């Protein structure tokens, strides 16, 4: 007879010395790992709960300004530097790692309306209520020198915004019209305008660098081509847009922060329907900034919160608020896509984590593996009701919470009336307009 018994050599299964790692043989046969789905479900539930436990996004508050923060700008090369302009004309340069202010300049009399850095990082421009555009050096004045701008341009009208080209020595300012300036000249190389109202902000496209977008008070968003020095097309919305931001990864896509509490993501090629309407704020949206990954953006609103939205979803994934933070005027996403800075009108700039439960610093390989596994589990089970409920839960201040309830009731009432209108009229006589198209008035080429 031929017989063989199963026998293990302990040398293959037990470690030799205390200093060795333990041996862990693996067999992935599903019969040895029963209850895969329920166990993964429980692990996903635990991962979601722990994510909420470790969600502590607030990092620091930079105070020093003596009036509300009106504009923010990032340094293009240095992650730790941020510039801010206040409503009393003061411009401060902050170091984020040391969380202190490294330089203060009394730049303008009146508001600092806009601030932007040059693409090389050596200088920055500011515009103010005193109708001037000033260019300053990024490094401070040397010993014994006075704080003087490199260059001052006097204009005839108030300038309300400024943005610098991403590659060339050209910048654009807006006020009564959009002016394109060459850095060496004191007169704009061209002025573009379409309509008769003032323009509140202007932004250059980071990918297709000759494109510009601007928002005007007559509720339109105009796109310009710098090479042809003409406006390209405009879209008229229901209410005024405060700012736009171009998607750094997709050349044709931009998001507009509107007064009707929504944000609209447009595809430049087809402006008559927004790609997505992002509805979650309960008051006017004042600023929007994209993450360098191009997949998410952050919005600042007059209700005292900032929200992070994914580009392809209409609901926010995260909301940050503090008792001390009042109306948030400006928000920026840092260039390493990890932090968010917001400037509010109570004179503070706050630094937040973009992923609230992320552990900062260097992670060991085991930590990374556990984090990736938990991330994948949360993604896989995100639609299950128990898990969705926990993942979506956020504490909101009473003002925002009650506003949300009220606005939901109003929206429901409006929708019920529309449904009844459609039901009780001749079928086909009342057109069904999708939510996306409702807010666009016209597109003009």
């Amino acid at each position, binding site marked *: 007879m031929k*017989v063989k018994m199963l026998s293990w050599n302990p040398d293959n299964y*037990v470690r030799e010395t205390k200093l060795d790692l333990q041996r862990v043989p693996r067999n992935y046969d599903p019969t040895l790992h029963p*209850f895969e789905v329920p166990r993964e479900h429980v692990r996903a539930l635990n991962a979601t709960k722990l994510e909420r436990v470790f969600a502590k996004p607030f990092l620091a508050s930079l105070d020093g300004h003596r009036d509300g923060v009106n504009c923010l700008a990032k340094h293009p090369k240095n992650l730790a530097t941020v510039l801010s302009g206040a409503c009393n004309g003061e411009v401060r340069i902050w170091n984020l790692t040391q969380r202190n202010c490294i330089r203060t300049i009394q730049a303008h009399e009146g508001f600092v309306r806009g601030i932007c850095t040059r693409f090389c990082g050596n200088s920055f421009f500011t515009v103010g209520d005193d109708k001037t555009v000033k260019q300053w050096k990024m490094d401070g004045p040397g010993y014994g020198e006075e704080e003087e701008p490199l260059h001052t341009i006097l204009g005839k009208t108030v300038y309300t915004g400024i943005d610098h080209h991403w590659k060339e020595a050209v910048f654009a300012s807006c006020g009564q019209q959009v002016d394109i300036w060459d850095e060496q000249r004191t007169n704009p190389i061209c002025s573009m305008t379409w309509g008769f109202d003032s323009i509140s902000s202007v932004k250059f496209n980071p990918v297709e660098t000759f494109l510009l977008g601007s928002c005007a008070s007559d509720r339109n968003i105009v796109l310009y081509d710098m090479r042809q020095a003409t406006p390209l097309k405009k879209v008229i919305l229901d209410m005024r847009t405060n700012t736009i931001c171009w998607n750094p990864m997709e050349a044709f896509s931009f998001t507009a922060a509107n007064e009707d509490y929504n944000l609209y993501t447009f595809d430049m090629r087809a402006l008559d329907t927004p790609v997505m309407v992002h509805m979650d704020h309960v008051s006017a949206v004042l600023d929007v900034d994209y993450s360098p990954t191009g997949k998410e953006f952050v919005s600042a609103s007059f209700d005292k919160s900032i929200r992070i939205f994914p580009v392809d979803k209409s609901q926010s994934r995260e909301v940050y608020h503090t008792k001390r933070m009042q109306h948030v005027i400006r928000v920026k996403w840092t260039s390493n896509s990890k932090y968010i800075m917001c400037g509010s009108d109570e004179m503070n700039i706050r630094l937040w984590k973009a992923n609230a439960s992320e552990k900062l610093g260097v992670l060991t390989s085991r930590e990374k593996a556990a984090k990736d596994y938990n991330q994948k589990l949360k993604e896989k089970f995100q639609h299950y009701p128990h898990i969705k409920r926990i993942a979506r839960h956020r504490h909101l201040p009473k003002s925002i919470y009650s506003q949300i309830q009220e606005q939901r009731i109003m929206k429901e009432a409006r929708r019920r009336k529309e449904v009844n209108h459609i039901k009780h009229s001749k079928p086909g006589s009342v057109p069904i307009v999708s939510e996306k198209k409702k807010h666009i008035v016209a597109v003009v080429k």
Partner: protein
Amino acid sequence: METAPKPGSDVPPKKDKLQTKRKKPREWKNPESQRSLSGAQDPFPGPAPVPVEVVQKFCRIDKSRKLPRSKAKTRSRLEVAEAEEEETSIKAARSELLLAEEPGFLEGEDGEDTAKICQADIVEAVDIASAAKHFDLNLRQFGPYRLNYSRTGRHLAFGGRRGHVAALDWVTKKLMCEINVMEAVRDIRFLHSEALLAVAQNRWLHIYDNQGIELHCIRRCDRVTRLEFLPFHFLLATASETGFLTYLDVSVGKIVAALNARAGRLDVMSQNPYNAVIHLGHSNGTVSLWSPAMKEPLAKILCHRGGVRAVAVDSTGTYMATSGLDHQLKIFDLRGTYQPLSTRTLPHGAGHLAFSQRGLLVAGMGDVVNIWAGQGKASPPSLEQPYLTHRLSGPVHGLQFCPFEDVLGVGHSGGITSMLVPGAGEPNFDGLESNPYRSRKQRQEWEVKALLEKVPAELICLDPRALAEVDVISLEQGKKERIERLGYDPEAKAPFQPKPKQKGRSSTASLVKRKRKVMDEEHRDKVRQSLQQQQQQQKEAKAKSTGARPSALDRFVR
């Protein structure tokens, strides 16, 4: 941008670049292009072949299931997931190459019957380490013994009818504890690790440490005849003489459910390791399946003409073996039809049944144990010829195969016998699940992780993968509600809008003509579909009518 912007309002921007790319099957490089400098060619071009059954083992998506029609985005995501699953199952099948051990076997030469080979011959023929696994403990004083191996297979606990309870590491023969509980012991079970023992004593259920210290006396579980531990739910199921099936959660110490089986005294119980369902055998020949979430049994299977005396379920949850007072031993198919696959009449009724990890079935009939084996791991054991037999010194009272070893433990009235059964144990264990060679630290880490991922008792049902299925009912319900709320169906196909064209092709007449074309096409499709449905119905009616001969009982067919 030099190109003109795309026209048309219904052209969505290309977002495919942001979404996951659709995974195309990997195209292997042309072998001719991989010639090395010497001009030699790979004699086995392409990827190494993988056996199909092994790949099937790792496939988890049931492709035959029909899902309701979903949006294009969801459909593309499902396709990507299916392609990924195929790739990963091939990779997992390849990783089987790394498994170091081979299962045991016993073959007779020249048509020799393996059933005639006795244990002494096997002990002589194998190596010393394996021979040491065969031992007899002569314990005649304290009554017939019942035994239980821990989940890793290293530790053995046994309890005699007259109160003798002991736990030991049977490989090194190191005794952990030995006590006499001064009461009749009806059943004994290890809890999740070798640190805790549950003993069903005459009156109540007691929990002991592996040092013999009594930790708990659970008075709500009285007159317990049988115990079963569900390891992934941390539930101890007890069947009592009063007819109650009680589930006790040992991690929090609460009784999760006390179900009245309404079938009198319960003394035949087994668990299905695949879905944690408890099988109870009754004296009217039925086996009922229980879950703590439901007050009624999940299913009742009529198995035998007399009472059911033993039930066992294999580790994959595919086969159930039952034996009854009618001297029959039957194997049922548990996945799909609950029909008997094979039957065998035994000279003496089998009072105890057990399955091994590799699908061997053992039956204890009086003082003889018979073991039947199947062709491979996946097939049921063939009951024609026994694989091995053994006679013990007393009637059998407890049977269990040791996990991960080729050993069968038998508790009888003369003590404990450990028998060698080549080919019974799973040769390759997974170090993170049950590791017989784990250290104390590894056991502690494993225990913490197991407690964290303890499955709640409400999730026990006949199909453990039910949680991963698409909830079709809720989906349809949600769709209906949305249509009601919005007043129209957002997913309904929008009525055809002819695209505006230049050069006079957009005049009213041509627009009407284009609309008409599309409408006629849709109408033709509808008519074709309805014709097909009618033909199918006619076929089915014909098949039904020409099938069975009309009988008097047809009037009762609904």
